[in-house]
Every structure is written in C-alpha cells, then in structure tokens.
C-alpha cells in the first residue's frame, strides 16, 4: 500500500492528488476505509483463532477446576498484573502517536512510537522472567514436568493431579506464547512505522498505516486483557 505507481488522469478526480492515493481508489477516504476494513476482517480471523484456544481452556477448566486453580496459583500474579498495566500504557502511546500524526507533530509521533516499542519490549522481558521461573520449577510440560504434592485451593487435604496440572501449563504456554509471538510481530510492524515516521511519510491527510498497525496492537492488548484473569487469577483467594 506504500507505493503509488500510477498517476491518475486529472479528469477522473476533482479532489486533491495525494501521492499515496492508489489508482484503483476514487478518494483517499475510500482507500483509508478499505484498509481499515481489511484489518478488521483479519482481526475477525484472529478472534476465531484465539477463540478456539479459549474454548479448549474453558472445557478443561470446567473438568479439572481444582487442578487448574492449584497450577494457576503457582504463577506470579503480580508480574502478570504489571504486564497488563504495561500493555495498557502501550495502547495509550499508540493512540497518542496517531493523534500526533493527525496534528503534524512529528517529534511527538516518533517519541510515542519509540515508547510503544519500549513498553512492548518490557512486556516481553517480564514474560521471559515468568517463563524462566516456570522452567526452574519444572512446570514446563514434557519429560521433566513435576507438580507433586501441591494442595488444591480450598481443599488443603487434596493434592492436584500432575497430569491435569500439565494440561493447564500446556494451555498457559501455548496461549501466552502465541500472544508473545503476536507482540514480536507487532514490534516488527512498529519498527517499520517508526522508519516511515522518521522519513516524514505520515501527514494529517495520510497516516493509514499507523491506524491499521494500531488496530493490530490494540487487538493484542484485548487478548491479554482476557488472558490475565483466566490464567493468573483462577482461584487465588485464601
């Protein structure tokens, strides 16, 4: 969408000739709406993609609620909460970046894009700490998995079944891992947006890539908003 190859004959357009307007669109507005719609359709497929995982999670959580509660309790909920706040801050810097582009504030735009990426990297760093803890506690599903004599919350006389807890950790690593992969892809997209912003490609008239990239970033934020309570806070109360 970044290259404009064709110059449109003046007779077919009576409005402005922005170089970003591709020849198969009638107006910049139509081009912008098409890009946004395309991203929303992609996000619809992403909702179904994560939806399948959430569905698997719900089925097993219902079957093995006590074991899931015990396994969930072994994850550091405070780190998860801090990560939620970090992602929310990154979503704010994304909307501020778009606002900066709309109001021709190039320095602010670049600052907000850099901040967004720093928040994203902070998130991945905290995630890495969490994964490291899980590796050290042998909570990674596989041959060395161990979850012996962990009491079920609310039932101190009962131990969680390790094979059921392993299902929780499999879902935990798949869901947070795929979410982290989305974050890595998001960082790639924002590196490109930062490069475009640095070159001064975004104007109040044309900043569609920022909006489309922002939609993706916010979606990844929404996925985390659900992952946090579902994985970290199943049965915490004393």
């Amino acid at each position, binding site marked *: 969408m970044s290259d404009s190859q064709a110059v449109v004959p003046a007779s077919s357009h009576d409005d402005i000739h922005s170089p970003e307007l591709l020849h198969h669109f009638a107006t910049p507005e139509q081009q912008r709406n098409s890009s946004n719609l395309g991203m929303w359709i992609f996000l*619809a497929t992403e909702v179904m993609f994560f*939806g399948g995982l*959430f569905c698997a999670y719900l089925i097993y959580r219902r079957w093995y609620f006590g074991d899931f509660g015990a396994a969930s309790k072994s994850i550091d909920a405070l780190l998860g909460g801090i990560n939620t706040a970090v992602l929310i801050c990154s979503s*704010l810097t994304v909307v501020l970046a778009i606002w900066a582009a709309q109001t021709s504030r190039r320095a602010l735009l670049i600052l907000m894009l850099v901040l967004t990426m720093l928040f994203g990297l902070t998130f991945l760093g905290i995630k890495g700490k969490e994964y490291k803890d899980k590796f050290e506690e042998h909570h990674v599903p596989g041959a060395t998995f161990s979850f012996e004599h962990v009491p079920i919350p609310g039932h101190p006389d009962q131990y969680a079944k390790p094979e059921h807890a392993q299902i929780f950790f499999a879902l935990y690593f798949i869901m947070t891992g795929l979410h982290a992969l989305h974050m890595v892809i998001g960082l790639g997209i924002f590196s490109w947006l930062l490069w475009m912003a640095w070159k001064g490609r975004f104007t109040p008239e044309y900043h569609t890539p920022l909006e489309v990239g922002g939609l993706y970033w916010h*979606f990844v934020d929404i996925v985390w*908003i659900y992952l*946090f309570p579902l994985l970290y*806070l199943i*049965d915490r109360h004393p």
Partner: protein
Amino acid sequence: MHDHSKSSPLKTYFAVWGSLLVGTYLTYKAAFIDLGPFNPVAALAIATTKALLVALFFMHLKGASERLLKLVVVSTVFFLIILLFLTMSDYATRPWSITA
C-alpha cells in the same frame, strides 16, 4: 465521516487509559476476595468492560460510520459466541462428560 474536526480527543484517551488501569487493579484485588461463584463472573465482567473500552475508544468503533465494518465486528462477536456458548452448553449437558 470520521470526526477529525473534533477539538481534542486527548481527554478521552487519558480517561480511558485511567479506567483501564483502575480495572486492572480491581481485577487483581477481586481475585483475592472470596466471592464464591462470582469470582469468575467479576473477572470476566471487568475484562469485558476493559475490552469494550479499548475497542470503542482506542480502536474507534464508537463513531465509526462504515456499515460494512460494523457488520464485520458484529459477526465476529456472533461467531465467537456460537463457538464458546454452543460448545460449553454441549459439554455441560451431556450425561457422559467427565465431571470429576
């Protein structure tokens, strides 16, 4: 169409950001209080409120005029509900399901 003419959306953005942080704090705190069967209800209610805030104000669904876009969003939610609700009602009502 899109309301570029509006004076400044900054106030909205910061208010939404603050609400999302408060929501995160509430989710965290509520998880440590025994609400019985309402613990997951509270967690999901807060999460859905936060998701709506992000979708409406940060993703600009509020004020979107494109009908096609609205159709995409509504059908996404519709099919997600079919996936989750029909699957779970099946698992919840079959006599042979594992309940231990």
